[in-house]
């Protein structure tokens, strides 16, 4: 409770807390699906290409099954994303009313991208049976580009909130002389965009590979599992070291462009040189730090390659203009956790690369496979942490140094918002629970089908599935229970 209290300034309107919780909850839920939305088509197309190229039916089967997963995942991504668009108006009317014409255009690009993505995904998913294989594959090819374009729009908006540009304020404090180009390509845009894209590729890769790593650990070591693991894992392993590099450069960009946020991420209190780096640890309102591992000089070195680098501290701005101690600690933990996960993933990727380079085969150690199975979850955690660092580190500003979160929030009564929040939690728990159940069910069904085929038992004839009525396999699917 103390923490809850600490999250808000004393004079904040009552509806601010539920509004923020609602926004954070829905965004954090949506973002779980985004890596798959952005990068699964790419990975699936790679597999598809391999299938066509080497005439490998297993690769084609994997691509088809992944696209069946994509169908469900895309649907949930679309609806949770639509909720976010509503929330811009429902929760932050002040933000959109004042700044909509400055930074809203990025979402216009996003709208094209969603149109294209929805069209192309539909064609790809439903084109397997009737389209010519070559046409089908070629129509799927622009999908990754559409996904990149969608990310462009969203990241342009978010990086604008971090480093707002492209307008001047008139005497009443309203933005005039809008320059869209500058508003889109803000200083944080480049670093955020590339860091984000690589994060998506890496996360999708580890998540998909993780499924087959589990199968491998359970003794399923056939061509199917090998392929299902190798392709996504290789993609992710290539992306991981790049991400470390990009993470380092985005951190330096934050240091230069959002110094107060950087101070929060690194819990630096006094502006100073020779600043130590804290791994985890906790910042107190009086500026002291308890717990954590202290590495002398390191923070200055990381920020400017020399211990003499001066790092701005939180106490350099008035208390009302910076995140409070609790918020800084949250952002700091999120940031550290992300960096730790990123570094561990690099080690995993190196392990894989070394074994491949020396022996031309997959690693045999159980520990490799166990780690690979966890890598997917870890990278989703890293993605969540990254956003918490970005968003909480920006407090109390919704538009950095231009508009406070409290000025943007809706006037709707806090009771209404809390009720809505409760309703949304119920709905989302149900939707995500059902999503998971559907995926597990699919897996079980496929596994059963594979086992039957392997044993040479006949499966139902294809005619049974068409043309009308619920699928004939209703009976056979409800027979199996456990995985």
């Amino acid at each position, binding site marked *: 409770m103390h923490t809850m209290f600490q999250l808000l300034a004393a004079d904040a309107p009552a509806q601010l807390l539920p509004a923020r919780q609602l926004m954070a909850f829905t965004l954090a839920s949506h973002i779980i699906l985004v890596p798959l939305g952005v990068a699964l088509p790419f990975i699936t197309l790679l597999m598809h290409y391999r299938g*066509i190229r080497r*005439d490998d*039916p297993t690769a*084609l089967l994997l691509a*088809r099954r992944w696209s*069946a997963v994509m169908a469900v995942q895309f*649907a*949930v991504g679309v609806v949770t994303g639509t*909720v976010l*668009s*509503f929330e*811009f*108006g*429902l929760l932050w009317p002040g933000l*959109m*009313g004042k700044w*909509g*014409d400055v930074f*809203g*255009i990025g*979402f*216009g*690009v*996003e*709208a*094209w991208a*969603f*149109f*294209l993505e*929805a*069209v192309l995904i*539909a*064609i790809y998913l439903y*084109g*397997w*049976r*009737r*389209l*010519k*294989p*070559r046409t089908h594959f070629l129509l799927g090819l622009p999908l990754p580009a559409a996904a990149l374009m969608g990310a462009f729009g969203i990241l342009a908006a978010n990086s604008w909130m971090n480093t707002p540009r492209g307008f001047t304020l008139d005497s009443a404090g309203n933005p*005039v*002389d*809008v320059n869209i180009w500058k508003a889109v390509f803000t200083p944080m845009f480049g670093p955020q965009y590339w860091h984000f894209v690589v994060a998506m590729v890496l996360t999708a890769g580890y998540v998909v590979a993780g499924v087959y790593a589990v199968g491998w650990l359970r003794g399923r070591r056939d061509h199917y599992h090998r392929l299902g693991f190798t392709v996504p894992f290789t993609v992710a392993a290539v992306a991981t070291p790049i991400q470390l590099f990009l993470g380092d450069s985005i951190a330096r960009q934050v240091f230069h462009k959002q110094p107060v946020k950087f101070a929060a991420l690194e819990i630096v209190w006094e502006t100073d040189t020779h600043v130590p780096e804290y791994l985890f640890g906790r910042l107190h309102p009086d500026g002291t730090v308890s717990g954590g591992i202290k590495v002398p000089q390191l923070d200055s070195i990381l920020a400017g390659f020399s211990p003499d680098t001066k790092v701005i501290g939180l106490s350099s701005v008035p208390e009302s203009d910076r995140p409070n101690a609790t918020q800084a600690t949250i952002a700091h933990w999120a940031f550290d956790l992300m960096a730790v996960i990123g570094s561990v993933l690099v080690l995993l990727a190196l392990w894989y690369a070394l074994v491949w380079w020396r022996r031309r085969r997959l690693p045999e150690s159980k520990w490799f496979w166990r780690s690979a199975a966890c890598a997917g979850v870890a990278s989703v955690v890293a993605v969540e942490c990254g956003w918490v660092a970005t968003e909480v580190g920006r407090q109390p500003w919704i538009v950095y140094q231009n508009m406070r979160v409290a000025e943007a929030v809706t*006037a*709707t009564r806090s009771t209404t918002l809390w009720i809505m929040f409760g*309703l*949304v939690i119920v709905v989302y728990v149900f*939707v995500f629970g059902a999503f998971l159940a*559907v995926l597990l*069910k699919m897996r079980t*069904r496929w596994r059963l089908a*594979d086992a039957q*085929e392997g044993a040479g038992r006949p499966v139902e004839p294809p005619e049974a*599935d*068409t043309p009308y*009525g*619920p699928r004939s396999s*209703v009976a056979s*699917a409800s027979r199996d229970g456990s995985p």
Partner: protein
Amino acid sequence: MTADVIAFVLLLAVTAYTCAGGTDYGAGFWDLTAGGTERGKRPRWLIDHAMAPVWEVNNVWLIFIFVIMWTGFPVFFQTVFSAMWVPLALAAVGMVLRGAGFAFRKASQRIAGRRLFGTLFAVSSLLTPFFLGAAVGGIASGRVALGTEASAKAWSNPTSLMFGLLAIATTAFLGAVFLSGDARRFDAPDLVDHFRGRALASLAVVAVLAVVALFVTRTDAPHIWHGLTHGVGLGFVLLAAAATFATAWLLLRPPGTWVRVTAVGVVAAAVLAWGMAQRPYLIPTSLTVADAAGAPSTLTWLVFVTLVSLVIVAPAVFLLYWLDTHGELESLTDTDLRRRGGAAGPGEGADGA
């Protein structure tokens, strides 16, 4: 000037969403009323197959509307979302349940699960358009203005009620017309007539509601009433009426393709009539297009965004609808997802490359 162009683009996007999204919601309406598990099996099967490839695209129109609203007319967006809090929040929840319900129903195989997801999908297909319609009704009757706080009055009033009901009836009408056409494509002659009858019935309901709504606006939304009975607004009203008669006539004749065109004509003309009647206001009679317009350079960019959409998105959407109506899109069956099952399907062929 640019603001007027953007306002018109906004109106066109609303029209497109009403037609495309409406067809989609309508399918949900008929899903709800299809009857018990046995009796409703075939209509539901048709609804599943007809909707699956296109529903996400149909709903992106809404995103496009929002983007134009908050980028082109930020104050308008702010006002509407502040005042219409409850209906819009409920519409958002409805959309989640609807989309998720539909996707999960297709993917799940147990009867119990299919029933649960199907019910969610169908019920929220009814509620969502109602709330959206009610919000539009509140705008049309000028019940919101800059600074209006969320209150039930804004969206529970005669015009909102009529617009909400009209929204449901319209979606049902469009859904039935399109499903009837889809039934032909999927070779299910009995369903063609099944939905043709329903299309006629719902067209009658739409016509009655529209006339009632028109007279409700007379006292409840005088600005709209004036616009609908004069000038361009009146022209579109007459066009809608003509399209209604043409649709009724086509529905009574042997099934063909043209009925889809006239059905869309009815709805599009009606939406355009409303938009024209609102001129020069975004919210009668407190917020004009000119007052709400965002920064001039942004509006110019929005024109550009719109043009690019026309150039790249329109062909893509057209291709999708074309492939869909020509039966080129078909979902993967379990057989395709089996190890060797796909060997029977063309998806497996190695066509060089």
